[in-house]
């Protein structure tokens, strides 16, 4: 054998080994375990404050703080896939051979070598024995196929042939799940968007990396409600959303936790919420001229103070600033100058800091609202994964409940005398020998009773 094919053969043998499969399973289990003990998704900064420099370096080098997304963990999954495919391909010819051997020649000597076999003697003539055996076996096990024999009666019964395929179904299902996950990670995204009631957005901030995805449509939050049980525990979070596609309202629906909305392959989930300032009535008094003007400011939208070119905007809000109560962050933009800003305390109108440049500012009225936190996801691989899930359940279920079982029977007229007919029965099963043994013995007893006397 040539050197090259020798190596190829060696690699193929290694990948095809069931020991390698067991080893990969246990290694994956051990690595996953490490990932549950160390906090995942920690930043460089957290890493260095929490651990000593040496430990932090090890964690950082091996990527243990983001273990499940590291190259080496993914390589383990690739190794599992290769092993799975090679093992399966290697097993296939054997299965095909087992299933193609339909008509094996039967001889009495062969039958007595099986793990499950028995011999029964009957006083009945052969043709009666034949009829009885055929009916009992066909009724209790499966249809008996006769094989041609001049001097004896011989037959084979086979049930659950297809159960040999179930292991392939399970292996294919694992492959589908892994491929589906790969499709999802290559072509999909996962992120979130926060939308204030009445507001709309099409930008999704991604969880991984610092990127934003722009949706091909706009999501508007019409309203958000949260309700509570008497105990104070939250009962329901509900967002009323409208999808605006091409400037038109395409779809309006409420979503709650466990009931998301899907549009154009993108799914929106209720995930969090928070309180925001929706609008406020604010009085601006020019300390130079003494002139006051009252404006209703929408959160985040700029407004112009009448008779001036000064633009003001509410940019921030805190429900409780220190111990001074609610505070509104207001910015003032004057042409040709840097924007100036200040916190205006709502409950303390006399506070000396409630001013920006020459404006004394007082918040007269505030109106709170909510923003809804939506999780946004696109995953074109999910149906591949689900197909894998279904195949896995069918495969494992069938593996549990079925097995490939075969029975051989033989009847001939041995020595002339009282029990002149000899019946031999042998059986084989692909799994669950204990149950098969019971089935085999029950069948034997039934045959013995019906064919009367017994020798062995």
């Amino acid at each position, binding site marked *: 054998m040539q050197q090259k094919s020798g190596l190829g053969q060696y690699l193929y043998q290694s990948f095809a080994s069931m020991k390698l499969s067991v080893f990969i399973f246990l290694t994956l*289990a051990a690595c*996953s375990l490490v990932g*549950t003990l160390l906090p995942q998704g920690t930043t460089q900064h957290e890493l260095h404050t929490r651990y000593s420099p040496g430990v932090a370096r090890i964690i950082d080098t091996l990527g243990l703080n983001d273990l499940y997304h590291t190259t080496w963990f993914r390589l383990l999954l690739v190794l599992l896939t290769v092993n799975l495919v090679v093992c399966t391909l290697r097993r296939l010819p054997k299965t095909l051979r087992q299933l193609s051997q339909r008509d094996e020649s039967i001889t009495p000597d062969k039958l007595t070598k099986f793990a499950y076999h028995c011999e029964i003697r009957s006083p009945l003539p052969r043709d009666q024995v034949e009829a009885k055996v055929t009916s009992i076996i066909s009724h209790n096990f499966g249809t008996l196929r006769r094989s041609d024999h001049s001097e004896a009666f011989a037959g084979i019964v086979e049930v659950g042939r297809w159960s040999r395929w179930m292991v392939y179904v399970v292996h294919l299902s694992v492959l589908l799940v892994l491929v589906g996950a790969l499709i999802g990670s290559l072509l999909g995204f996962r992120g979130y968007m926060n939308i204030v009631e009445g507001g709309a957005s099409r930008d999704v901030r991604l969880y991984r990396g610092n990127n934003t995805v722009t949706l091909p449509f706009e999501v508007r939050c019409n309203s958000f409600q949260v309700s509570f049980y008497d*105990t104070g525990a939250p009962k*329901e979070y509900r967002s009323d959303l409208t999808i605006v596609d091409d400037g038109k309202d395409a779809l309006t629906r409420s979503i709650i936790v466990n009931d*998301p909305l899907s549009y154009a392959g993108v799914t929106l989930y209720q995930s969090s919420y928070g309180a925001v300032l929706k609008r406020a009535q604010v009085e601006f008094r020019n300390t130079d001229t003494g002139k006051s003007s009252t404006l209703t400011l929408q959160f985040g939208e700029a407004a112009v103070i009448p008779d001036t070119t000064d633009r003001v905007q509410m940019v921030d809000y805190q429900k409780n600033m220190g111990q001074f109560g609610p505070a509104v962050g207001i910015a003032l933009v004057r042409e040709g100058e840097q924007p100036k800003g200040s916190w205006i305390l709502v409950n303390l109108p006399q506070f000396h800091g409630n001013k920006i440049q020459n404006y004394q500012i007082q918040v007269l009225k505030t109106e709170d609202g909510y923003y809804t936190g939506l999780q946004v996801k696109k995953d074109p691989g999910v149906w591949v*994964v689900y197909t894998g*899930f279904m195949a896995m359940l069918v495969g*494992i279920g069938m593996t549990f409940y079925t097995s490939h079982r075969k029975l051989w029977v033989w009847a001939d007229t041995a020595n002339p005398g009282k029990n002149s007919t000899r019946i031999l029965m042998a059986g084989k099963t692909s799994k*669950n020998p204990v149950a098969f043994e019971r089935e085999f013995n029950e069948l034997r007893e039934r045959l013995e009773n019906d064919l009367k006397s017994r020798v062995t």
Partner: protein
Amino acid sequence: MNSSLLLSITTFAYLVCAIFYLSGVIFRHRPLLIAGGFAGLGTLLIQTAGILLRWKESYDLGYGHAPLSNLYESLVFAAWAIMLIYLIFEYKTKQHAMGVFPSIFSFLAMAYASFSTQIDSKIQPLVPALKSNWLIAHVVACFLGYAAFAVAAGVSVLYLARKASPANPHPKGMLALIPESRQLDEFNYQLILFGFLWLSLGIITGSVWANSAWGSYWSWDPKETWSLITWLIYAALLHSRSVQGWRGRKVAWLSLVGFVCVLFTYFGVNFLLSGLHSYATQ
């Protein structure tokens, strides 16, 4: 009559059941084992009534959810599932001496649920995340899997005990009524295959549920990851039977390692690691 009375009776009845089985094995007295089986069946019926009554009580309180929503309710269900699977197993195999461990496990689960001061047995309303039809399917599938693994772990211990004594096909003493090791190995395999099916179903329903609730069918949450670890261990076990010379003792040990993983998935993750399943600790 209320559910907590029925469940208190259940706790003590499981103790009685365990004592029957244990003394049956110790004194090599088959009738005691049979009595253990009947005690187990009776207890299971009382417990079933208790669980159904608690379900009804939750509707009376206006919450209306299946009693599978927190640690207390899951422990009660675990005890129920272990006894159910064991009794079916006993009925199908006609072997009565393997009930020692399942009945002790059921008793311990009930005792922990009833007597631990950290576990609140009050019926609580469901948090929004748990309001889904997937809840019943997911919890039932997971716990049937766990229960099958618990019974298998008991069988594995018996297998190892049986193997530890020198090659004697008919041992005297406490092992006299225990089936022979070849059968124990096969029972272990059957139970694990059964548990594996339910664990797979549990992980899959959880995964589909997570996808419909928060948009990700897999997010490496500690509970998820630990259930995968458990799944991998049992997958390794099922495959290792095909490796030459790996039947028997190695499989029994892997079955015990798998059960330790089940316990950690169930308890360890709740108490030591934080994640999406935090509501399971209360």
